[in-house]
Structures are given as structure tokens and as C-alpha cells.
């Protein structure tokens, strides 16, 4: 089965730049040790975002890439913009661009359709960047490996997802024996009521 998705190169770069702004490869402090942690792009999360954006009611990946370039142009001092401009910015400048977009500090009438003069859609799309990146990273999505681009019903979990390792999540469970009794029981309340 072959992936049905085709994205322009600059759109791919811009979505990589989003994921890298939100979850970059990092050294994190964990139990007072420093630990290396792979970023979202190492798990191909930019593809998850693109697939998701193309499964909205109307495909939105290309327009969203343009939206990022135009917002970057109005947020970061630059003489001109071009396709993929957003992806050339520093991580701070990219986050600043997202914040400007979220706060509607860009000329709304100059944005590509359907974002043009559509503040609620813009805000919801900014939320989607953050939500999808973190949900994709910490859910099992990366474990679908070569089936990631398949139609959702044909994906297969082929390895233990890295996000689960980082979160200390053991994966789906049949059950746990951590039963510590009941603080209340319905039958006791019924007794109370009848007295």
C-alpha cells in the first residue's frame, strides 16, 4: 500500500519547522541527570501533522504552509518572503510567529483562504499545531513506522513507540492489581436512605 499524500517540498520544510519548534531534540533534566531525548522530527511527526491537516473537511496543508510564511513575514523583520521562509527562522522566531498568529497580530485580510479574515480558524489551527505535535509524539503513532502513511485502518504497530519510553508508559494493559478498597459503597448509602 502506497501513501496517498503528496506535499510540496517547502510545505514539508515548514511543517518540520513547526514540530522542531515545539519538540526539538533536547538534553533534559531527569532525576537530576541530563538525558538526551530525540525530537519530534526524528519520529517523522511532521508527516503526522500533514496527514492530519489533509484529513480536515478540506485539505489544509498547503494553505497552512503559506499562512506560516506570511505570518513570519509580518512578525520577523525581513525584506521579502518566499515559500518555506518560516522554516529558515530560528526556533525563537518560529515560536514568536506562532504567538503573533495566535494573537492575530498579522494582517488578517492578506492571509490565504480559508484563513483570510477568519480569526477563530486561525486560533484553532495554532492550537492544532501544539495539540497534534504533542499527541503524536506521546501516543503510539511513531510505532506505526513504515505504515504511518497508510490509510488509518491499515496501520500496524511495529515497534514500542519512543514516546512511551520517554513517558514511562508501559502501553495498553489488560489490568492492574492496584486495588486499595472502596471509600464508599452504594449499598451503604441505600441503607442510610432507608433508615
Amino acid at each position, binding site marked *: 500500500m502506497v501513501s496517498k499524500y503528496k506535499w510540496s517540498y517547502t510545505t514539508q520544510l515548514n511543517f518540520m519547522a513547526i514540530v522542531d519548534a515545539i519538540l526539538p531534540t533536547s538534553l533534559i533534566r531527569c532525576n537530576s541527570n541530563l538525558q538526551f531525548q530525540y525530537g519530534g522530527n526524528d519520529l517523522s511527526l511532521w508527516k503526522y501533522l500533514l496527514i492530519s491537516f489533509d*484529513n480536515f473537511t478540506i485539505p489544509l496543508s498547503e494553505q497552512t504552509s503559506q499562512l506560516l510564511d506570511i505570518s513570519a513575514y509580518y512578525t520577523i523583520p525581513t525584506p521579502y518572503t518566499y515559500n518555506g521562509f518560516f522554516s529558515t527562522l530560528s526556533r525563537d522566531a518560529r515560536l514568536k510567529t506562532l504567538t503573533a498568529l495566535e494573537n492575530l497580530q498579522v494582517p488578517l485580510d492578506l492571509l490565504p483562504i480559508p484563513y483570510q479574515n477568519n480569526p477563530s480558524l486561525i486560533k484553532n489551527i495554532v*492550537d492544532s499545531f501544539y495539540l497534534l505535535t504533542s499527541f503524536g509524539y506521546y501516543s503510539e503513532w511513531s510505532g506505526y513506522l513504515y505504515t504511518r502513511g497508510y490509510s*488509518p485502518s491499515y496501520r500496524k504497530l511495529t515497534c514500542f513507540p519512543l514516546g512511551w519510553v520517554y513517558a514511562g508508559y508501559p502501553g495498553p494493559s489488560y489490568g492492574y492489581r492496584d486495588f486499595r478498597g472502596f471509600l464508599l459503597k452504594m449499598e451503604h448509602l441505600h441503607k442510610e436512605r432507608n433508615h
Partner: protein
Amino acid sequence: MKNYQVIIIGAGGGGAVVAKELGELGLKVLLLEAGPWYGNRKWPFPNTEKGAISSGELQDLDIHLFKQTYNKMENEMNDLIVGKLRWGPANRDRPLWNRVYEKRGFTWQNSGVGGSTQHYLGNSPRAYPISIDNQWPISYRDLIPFYEKAEAELPVEFAPTTTKEELYYFGAKKAGWGLLSSLNITSAGFRPQPNAILPPNSQLTNRAYSEYELSWMEGCTLAGHCINGCPHGPSVDKIAKRSTNVSYTPLALATGNVEIMPNTFTYQIITENHAKEGIRAIGVKVRNTWTGENQELFADCIVMAAGAIETPRLWLNSLLPKNEWVGRGLTNHNMDMVTGIFNSIDLNSIVGSHSVRPNVGHTSGARFDYPGLGSILVMGISPGLTSSFSYALSTVNASTSGNDNYTKGRMVGKELMELMANYQNTLNMLIVTDDEVVNSNYVSITPTVSDEHGPVPFINYVPTSNSLRKKKELTKVAIDILRAAGAKKVVHAAWPDGMMIHIMSTMRMGYVVDYNSEALQVKRLFISDNSILSNGLGGANPTLTTQALAIRTASIIYRNYF
């Protein structure tokens, strides 16, 4: 075409209950559902092949198919766009069903038999009496027998204690709150969740049984997958979490009088002007979501149970009589999330465990009730949803101000990774606000945006200043409890106001429907979903109240028309 006496639109939290009740009374019922039917032999590949048209046989339910579908993977199940539990057609290669939002936020609902109870947490508290009495056309006392019937049938039992609940009870007590030992809540305090989840199997701690064996036995296994869709139990009708596809639906099928038609979207109510009764409902127009074929179906009574967004949409798209409250008065409990992160050494002395274990036990096994302000759900959810709802969903970037003992706003990068590295030491508190009903919050339709079922819903919600004040006070209660329990770090997410999870009161009793849940302006048209709630119940989860009303409505339909 077979003749039915009652057609019900929507097999979710309300519709399945009406179907079972009417089936037991001997009426021939057709239950229409827009989404798929998981765990039914007539749809062995529910997301990729159209399967049969309908099923009315209890033997069609298949536990093996059910467990195959409900695989507990959060991306597979909960992804809002292509997940099995999404708001869209069964075929996941097709896009979602569209909604247009006037304000920031989104809706989180499921299509399919079971509706949004497929991903609900099973939380089944009653409404707060002060939010019913003198506010609804019906009194709290009137509701009690119906609550009792729903509680017995689901059944509802208080959640067992696991590590995360024990930690919360410790914090709540230390913060000065008392245990509420009641179902009828008139003061503030903490208690275990009254949940529509079967009690744990008595062998749960018996090591002679493996966890896998336990997952095929009756009773909750504390596996922590309520929100992902619970698949544990020996048969479909004995699944531990009592979503309506495993509780009221099998009971409805057992009557032999109920036929269920999934993959069928109802886009219009058919009415006639009757000499004696006036305008009355006589049928529906539906569309098969696989083939696109349209069909008209007729019955003596119609029950709308499509949820608080689609029910008003259906009314408006059917050009039913004008009523200034149709779609108006929308409430959503103006939710927010507060998360505490604990230190392993402290935890060991408090709960005898080095971690909180958020993935163990009921997704929400404990709650805080505060009549007049709302409620707080104590939760632990799978890691992808935790990162999204605790740290990513926010209207502001993270900041910690000098006087506050918590961080507010969205986390990214290293900070987000460090918080998530502490996932096992995380406790979530969902703020569920008693938000005010106002006419300016609504579900309408937008004539310029249509899908295959007509103009799509248009949603507008802005909380009142009173609702915002209550949310703030509840947030403070949650932070105080987490601090009292020993949390080393607290993060307040600051969600957008337009998060639609508990969606209620858009077809309010007393305004759009009467005391009997029958439309004021259309005879033989009843409503049985969260839309008829006259308000947001003071901040109690809505499902049990809708189910209690559904039982009541079914008896009224039978009495008045059959």
C-alpha cells in the same frame, strides 16, 4: 419497508435508553445512528466495508470483534481526525463532519452506536438539587426514581481506590475538606466517583489468574482505558465500562422489538399539519453514509437524540417552527485542566508507592463537588492525551508570576519533555464549571457552509463573567488540594473557553420541549439527549441525568400515544 412505531435518531447516551425502554413496553422501534457499529457480526470490517443495513439480534454482538476494534491505543482510538472514536463517518478515509466555530475551541464527540459514551469516563453523578429545583420545570424529587432506575440498570457503583485516588483523598482531607457520603449533593467536599463501571472482579488480586484471564472475566480490571474505549469483559453486554453500546443497546436488542441502523445520517424531520393535533412529526429523511442513498422512514412518534449540536441543527434544517430558544442557551461547563507533579520520595511516604500511576484504575475515580461553583474530576489519562490536555491546549504561553505558586499556560520544548518524563508522577484535575445559561451562546446553522447533510452547525460560546469567576475559584480549590497533597509543581493549562466536551442545554426543557420532553411546537416529536437539560446541572457530568430523563420520556411516549 417494515413499519415502526417509534423512530429514534441517535444511539448515544440518551437514544439507546429510550429504545430499550420502549422495546420492553412492546413497541416496534427503529434506532438510527450516523456512525459505525463496533463489535457486531454484521459489520466485521466496520471502518472499511459498508456491511449490512441493520441489525436487531442480540446474537449479532461479537466480543472478539469488539476487542479487535477497541484496541486501547490512544492514537488509533482517540485521534480527533481519523480515530475510531471521532465525529465522522465510519469510513476513516473520509473527512470529519464539519462544524464552524465562531470562537476558539473544538467539539469532542463520537459517532457510532454508543455515541460519546464510547469515550466517556462513566462518571454518573446526579445533578445538584439546587441546580434543578426552581430552575427546571421538574423538581429534583421528581427525578429521583428515574435516577435510581438508571443507577440500578447501568449499574452505577462508587469507584475503587487506586494510588491516584488515595493521593487525592489525602490532599483533599489535608486541605480541610470532608467526605460527601451521599448521591444528593448539597455541600462541598470530596468523594469517589459514582461510575457506570462494574466493580473489580473479586479475583483481581488473586495471582492465580493472569491479567489477560481477568480481562475476559466480569468486572473492571483497573486497566485505565476508560477514555480510550473499554474492551474488558466476557461478552459485549458485560464490558466493564457501561457505555450504551454495551449496556442499554444489548438490553434493547434482547426485547426483540428494536432494530438498529448504523451508518445512517438523519438530515430532516418530516412533518404534516394534522387537523386535530396541528403540526406533528411523522417521519425522517436519512442518508446512508457509505452509499449516499437517501430514504424516507415513517413512524407514529419521533425521538431526536442526536446530541446538543446535531439536534438543534436537525430542527433548523428541517424548517420546523421558529422558536427563539432553539439551539440557544448552550453550556459546556467551561472546562480547564490543572496538573500536579509529585516527587517519588514524598509519594512513598504518603501512598506507599513511588509513582502516582495515572494509567491505573478508572480514568476518573474521584471527584470534588462544590454546588454553586461546579465540580472537579480527578483523572489520569494516557500519555498522548496528557501531553495535549495538560500542557499543549492553552490560550497563552507558559509563565510563572512571582506571587503564584504555579505555572500557567502552554509548555513546549525541554520544559514539556521534562514534565512528560514525570508522567508517572502526574495527577490531573479537570475543572468543570457551573456555567450560566445565556441566550447569546448557541448552536445555529450557517447557510453558506453545507455538507452532504445540509447546512453545518455553527457554534458560538462566550462565558459570562459569573462563569469565569466560578472557574477561577474552582481552579484555586484544585491547586490548593494538589499543593496539600504534596505536589512539587502545579501547571494550570488555561484552556480556551470553547472546549466542547459536555455539550448541553440547547433545546431546553421549558423553552423548546415541555415537561414531557415533547417539542412545544411539534406534536409526537420528543427529544432525549443533553440538549433538553434546562441548564448545566450545576457542573455535574450530564449523562446520568439525560439517561434518567430518557427513561421518563419513554414512559410518557408510551402512555400518551400507544
